[in-house]
């Protein structure tokens, strides 16, 4: 399946664009997404942390992703 992956902060810099189409196996989980990203973009391993938000909620690794989900990469936040 194809998902739309949105990235902010340093995650956007690493990926090179705000939004990208990203190919994942059907019924892939958030954990699967992170593994594939670590393979495709080795710079992610240098980050303090990387979280995934699905439909504006922080998602756990075992959450299954659907093609229509809003999937967003959340590098370490630093608001305030």
């Amino acid at each position, binding site marked *: 399946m194809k998902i739309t992956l949105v990235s902010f902060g340093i995650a956007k810099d690493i990926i090179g664009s705000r939004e990208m189409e990203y190919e994942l196996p059907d019924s892939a989980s958030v954990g699967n997404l992170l593994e594939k990203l670590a393979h495709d973009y080795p710079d992610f391993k*240098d980050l303090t942390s990387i979280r995934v938000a699905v439909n504006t909620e922080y998602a756990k690794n075992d959450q299954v992703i659907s093609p229509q989900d809003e999937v967003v990469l959340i590098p370490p*936040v630093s608001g305030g």
Partner: protein
Amino acid sequence: MQEISTYPLIYISENPLQPEAVIDLVKSDHCGGIDVFIGTVRNQTKGKTVVRLDFESYDKMALREMEKIARKAREKWPIDKIAIHHRKGSLAIGEIAVIIAVSTPHRKASFEACQFAIDTLKETVPIWKKEIFEDGEVWVAAHP
């Protein structure tokens, strides 16, 4: 300038934040104490001169997380009103990045709730700041 009374309690804006407006939002006739935290842009970090800060926000989720903070604070303390305003975009030294204001019947709770809110905001709200130096830039907290 926007009419003071029309600001929402939870708010993200590219325009300068208004402390007086945020205070007015939480004022209450049956509360004796308001605590306000204001985060401003420092001119240096770890001894290095900062030129400006650029804030990026995942607005939709950031607003939800800010709402959650307000809800959790209400569960812990007898809050009358709580407002959280965050700036985004490019901020000069001294500009206000965040304002949190909490009104409670007695003062101790206002301090505790306000500190809880800013501590939690810095952990959970998807907003990122990039420090711009004269010779480079860095996303804050991105690397260990």
